[in-house]
């Protein structure tokens, strides 16, 4: 069960992630997009999911029982190769429905001082 003291807290990574053209090309290739000049709209998940899991690994959430319920992106500008993205994650809401924990985590990806993408993941921890 999530530690209730963590709701509303923001955790910021200590290391940024450098986006390579190769990582964009690899992601785009899976959906059949050749030679994109910027990352596809959902590319941010390849950074935010891993980063938010690291940031929240001691939160009490049982990651082995997590199911992805919902996802939202706000893209201020597309991610491009060369971006150096720092992730900060906030547990916005937490509720328990029929024993399942439903947690909404917001992750902001900044490149320098610019906010590039905000993503919200709703995760369901199955009872």
């Amino acid at each position, binding site marked *: 069960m999530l530690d209730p003291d963590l709701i509303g807290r923001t955790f910021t990574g200590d290391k940024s992630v450098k986006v390579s053209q190769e*990582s964009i090309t690899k992601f785009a290739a*899976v*959906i059949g997009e050749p030679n994109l000049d910027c990352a*596809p709209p*959902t590319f941010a*998940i*390849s950074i935010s999911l891993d980063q938010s899991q690291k940031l929240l690994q001691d939160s009490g959430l049982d990651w082995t029982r997590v199911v992805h319920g919902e996802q*939202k992106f*706000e*893209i201020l500008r597309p991610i491009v190769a060369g971006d150096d993205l720092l992730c900060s994650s906030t547990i916005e809401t937490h509720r328990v429905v029929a024993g399942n924990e439903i947690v909404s985590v917001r992750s902001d990806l900044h490149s320098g001082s610019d906010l590039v993408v905000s993503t919200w993941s709703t995760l369901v921890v199955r009872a």
Partner: protein
Amino acid sequence: MTLTLGQELAPKSYSINRALLKQYADASGDQNPIHQDESFAKSVGLADVIAHGMFTMALAGKYLSELAGSGSVKEFSAKFIKPVVVPAGVDVELVVSGKVLELEGGLAKIELTAMCGQVKVLGMAKGVIKLS
């Protein structure tokens, strides 16, 4: 492409198979075995290997991007309401279609429908694109 309010956008079909799930796992970093390992998937009560919800969403995102060009998507959200079951040796067809819900200030809000056969797999799927 010129969009009009209420317009129904032509459906497009995308194939999902086991090889693509492995490729998506490697590209996204999501190596959860329920998306690759049939015996593991069955051991946790699933019918078979299921696609990453985010892979389905990535394909719907491609549909959205193609309406106004790469880099045009400003917002995109969806619920994962039913799993996309991917048996071995099969190409599962995901059919994505859209409808123009709002047109304002150079932005279009699009409602997306993503179906596998008769099963709706994404719920409340919507995107906002910047029209060029």
